[in-house]
């Protein structure tokens, strides 16, 4: 184990810097975002007007529902599912 000198350990610690905080935060939020996605899709299936609003301007429709689209991790999937 003499190969693990201080210099090598230091270099190995430095090889894994943190991912950008916003990326990690979005990944942590996946369970909540998944629940929101399921609710939005369910509502779009039951409410034609809401579905039209989502298709016409997804970002604005999400904001109206209290979901911030710029940090919401499932935007593409929602777009696919309500198409």
């Amino acid at each position, binding site marked *: 184990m003499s190969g693990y000198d201080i210099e090598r*350990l230091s270099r*190995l610690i430095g090889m*894994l810097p943190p991912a950008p905080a916003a990326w990690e935060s979005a990944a942590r939020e996946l*369970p909540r975002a998944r629940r929101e996605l399921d609710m939005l899709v369910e509502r779009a299936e039951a409410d034609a007007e809401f579905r039209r609003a989502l298709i016409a301007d997804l970002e604005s429709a999400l904001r109206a529902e209290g979901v911030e689209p710029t940090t919401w*991790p499932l935007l593409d999937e929602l777009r696919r599912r309500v198409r």
Partner: protein
Amino acid sequence: MEAARDPREAAPRSTAALSAELSDAKLVALCRGGDEEAWGALVERFSRYVYAIAVQAFRLPEHDAEDVFQEVFARVYERLDTLREDEAVRPWIAQLTRRLCIDRLRAGSREVTADTAELPDGPDEDLLAQLEEAFDVHDALARLPENCREILDRFFARDESYRAIGEALELPAGTIASRISRCLDKLREAFEGRNKPGTAS
């Protein structure tokens, strides 16, 4: 979602504490049971690794790396039930990340050279091997006392200055170097102990 939590545990746990105290297999089992704190801990445990594979080994530009990063965790979340052995989550995530990076490189290459069969450069395999080692070192680091964990991570992984560390941790700047040195000694002891035959966790 119903949290699959040990009923004996009353106090809320931080994701950092969870991440340090649970094995990969236990963390996966908790995530599969719908424990959102455990999911946060899993993201914390693997986020640097996924990021490093995408940015360092595959040299993806930041916006592509972000897409890969989010896609990796989305798939892990969706497909955790398909993982055959819970303790194999790390190689599974590594494989998934590599595959998505390759897809991203191929897609980019198709856009640039649509009329050729050229494929982009593959990953730096030597660097990938070093990232595995780096993950093991961080795993040992996570088990050190918080004061050592913080100071080593801030100095070597976050590239913070003595002054910034001193301010953040309320330590005299003149003591930072000696603290780093002592903590590195502790890390080496912990890491070597961890890797001795018969002491594997």
